[in-house]
């Protein structure tokens, strides 16, 4: 496909005096589908596959021909969201369009509900404000869940493990009365007006996940305490520092393992300005794999069996979408997967369902205005 929207300026999110400013709409422009940096020195990981994907434009979710399991070395097979099944290893065989309609543009981040049967995502709504949406079923238009025009640049979204609440990280929704920049907002999955979660105001949060009743989020260098990872109870409270400062430069998406380790996709931390996946263990962050091209936000998800990471990527040379698979047993050799998505160039957020080996992924310009996809075996 052609990307006619690839030639805009940077995404400039203008905060004026009210949350409902329309300036955003007038000034928001996405840096292009041709995307990313210009580093030519980055090695491209060995080409690989996560399986045969159905064409992403296909309305049907019917899978293509079965593909041999590749890339993860795991003997465990995913079997969808069925309770009691062996945890999945993140093999993607189906990429199904979940949302693309005139109600939104530029989807930033997407997450499945806990059992993978629903998808929630953030985007710029048709009225120019930041929006929270639920993907429609059976090809219906996505439904907008937030009201009040509170959000500006909702770059991250997570759903509570009971499926009742959505957490939205918005680094640009400022409280001008207090000068607090950004917050994590909460709203019911059934819809409502987002409210700032106590303790998160002014933290300039970027991406957010929920794990074991705790909310984890990333912050940039401009935030108090600097670039890194913070955590707090889902009910709110004073955020605690999980890790902060170097080697973090621009932490974006994150995923949390059952043992508490946090995996973070940092957009530019490598020496050649490409992305790095950091592993935070015991409060110490260290680079796990470097030189990955990533988009915004740089989505990352841990497979259900925790054998591998999937990273929403951009080929450093071709500047087109791919998904990296980082086998945690062999982190030096990420494989890549781009079947059906290699004509896109604005990869964005990526999350796994908390209780299933299914994923939601967004490309901010796919099919013109951006598309949310469901990824599954």
């Amino acid at each position: 496909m052609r990307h006619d929207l690839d030639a805009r300026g940077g995404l400039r999110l203008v905060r004026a005096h009210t949350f409902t400013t329309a300036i955003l709409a007038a000034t928001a422009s996405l840096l292009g589908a041709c995307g990313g940096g210009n580093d030519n020195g980055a090695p491209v990981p060995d080409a690989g596959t996560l399986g045969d994907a159905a064409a992403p434009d296909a309305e049907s979710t019917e899978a293509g021909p079965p593909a041999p399991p590749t890339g993860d070395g795991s003997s465990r097979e995913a079997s969808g969201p069925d309770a009691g099944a062996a945890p999945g290893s993140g093999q993607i065989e189906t990429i199904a369009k979940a949302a693309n309609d005139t109600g939104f543009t530029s989807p930033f981040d997407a997450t499945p509900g806990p059992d993978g049967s629903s998808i929630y995502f953030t985007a710029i709504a048709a009225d120019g404000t930041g929006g929270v949406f639920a993907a429609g079923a059976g090809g219906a238009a996505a439904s907008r869940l937030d009201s009040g025009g509170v959000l500006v640049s909702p770059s991250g979204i997570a759903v509570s493990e009971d499926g009742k609440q959505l957490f939205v990280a918005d680094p640009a929704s400022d409280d001008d009365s207090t000068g607090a920049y950004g917050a994590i907002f909460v709203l019911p999955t059934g819809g409502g007006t987002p409210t700032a979660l106590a303790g998160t105001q002014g933290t300039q949060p970027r991406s957010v996940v929920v794990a074991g009743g705790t909310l984890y989020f990333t912050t940039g260098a401009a935030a108090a305490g600097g670039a890194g990872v913070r955590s707090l109870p889902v009910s709110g409270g004073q955020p605690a520092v999980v890790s902060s400062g170097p080697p973090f430069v621009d932490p974006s998406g994150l995923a949390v393992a059952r043992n508490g380790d946090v995996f973070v996709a940092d957009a530019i931390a490598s020496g050649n300005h490409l992305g790095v996946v950091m592993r935070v263990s015991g409060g110490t962050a260290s680079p796990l794999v470097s030189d990955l091209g990533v988009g915004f936000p740089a989505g990352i998800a841990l497979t259900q069996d925790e054998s591998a990471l999937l990273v929403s990527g951009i080929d450093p040379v071709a500047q087109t979408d791919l998904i990296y698979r980082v086998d945690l047993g062999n982190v030096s050799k990420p494989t890549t997967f781009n079947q059906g998505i290699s004509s896109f160039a604005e990869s964005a957020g990526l999350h796994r369902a908390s209780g299933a080996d299914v994923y939601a992924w967004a490309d901010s310009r796919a099919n013109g205005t951006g598309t949310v996809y469901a990824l599954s075996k």
Partner: protein
Amino acid sequence: MRLRHRFIGASAALGFLATVASANASSHREAPAISFDPAADNTDLWAWVPPDLSMLFLVAAYNPLEEPSGGPNFNKFSDDVLYQIHIARGDQSLEDAVTYDIRFTTSPIMRVDVTDKTAAPGGGKEFFSQLSGQTQTYSIVKREAGMAPVTIASGVPVAPSNIGPRTNVVAYKIAANGYDAFSQTFVKDMGAEGQVFAGPRDDGFYVDLARIFDLANFAGSITTPVTSAVDGVAGFNCHAIAMAIPTSKLTGTGKAPTAGPSDAQTLGVWASASRRKVSILRHDGTIDSDGPWVQVSRLGLPLINEAVIGLQDKDKYNRTTPATDVTNFGGYFLNPIIVRDYEVVAQTTVPDSLKFNRTDILDVINLKDIPTTGAHNFGLSVTGDVLRVDLGVASSFPNGRVVGHGANPNQDQADVTDIELSLLLTGKTSGISDGVNSNDKPFLTQIPFLASPWEGATQGHGKPAP
């Protein structure tokens, strides 16, 4: 932007293709998006080796058409932009063999209590920027494939603006007429890595912008008598990064280049500017920049995006790298639109051999018969918008692009505007000219090569008050 004759052609192309966006020279304001972002806009690139093959001299210019009197916030490099010089090498890849990352840092303004009647001049209470005490410095990180990045310069001051004689005396503490010598003191010696300069300079490009953007109605065209050409870039400044790099640092062997043409010793040089993908404008006046770096401007050969790439793809061109040029833009190189437009504008018939399948253009870009027949043999897979510089041969455009070294001190070794126009429109390297054949100031014979910037107080473009 010394385009003289050659650029005429190219400029003519530009005129046809970029009428909406801009009116500039080598690559000044050449694409819609970057025309809104001058601090990140590559305007020109020169790179060459002298006859002794000892050094690669390189000048990357940004910030088109700087008005010398444009105060109180005179033009600067942007702290938010990643400026880069990319150098590919050999016939196997257009990926960087060596990259120089240049980042700028402006010192914070010291806040001053405006009610303090005893406060000395200076700090954030001032509106004269040159009294504020604020300075800009830069660092250079050199990256070589397979090696850890090395910081080869840090905290190097940027030459300040040439504002006027009173500023020279009061703010810079130099003689009223001492700016030229003062600016030369900002050349930084980096030891074995060479020398560098960053700061304002005279824009070294020259071209009849006005006529060219009037649909190539320039003096010297086939249909217009050669009369009264006007240098549209005259009197304007730019911001330039100039480097002198020992060629032994670029051959890949650590040794000096071997004399004689070869693909293996030929560099592919280009410059770029990148910004972070997301910016959030805060209520207090600050800007948060997040996300991956996104390239917003690039330049290799003069006038490619300006005169070859169509309006529909110009912004995409700035987002992509030379390695994908054949895939993305090959049709523009082989079938230059300017030639077809020329047929319409000049109401003349141009043979199809000049309109389509112009492999001769690729041969020139790839130095196939330069300096001698069959001297180079770069394949399509390594063809792109890079300035080829054969380290084994004294540079002469299009093998490198030299600042100055023409017949007179204000003339270039080659008028790239005329050469490119002639090549595109006639298949030859001469014959068409925009009539502007020299710069408005003599070039320098040493780094930073471009002439000292025009002075705001006395040399701006204002006219006497009525």
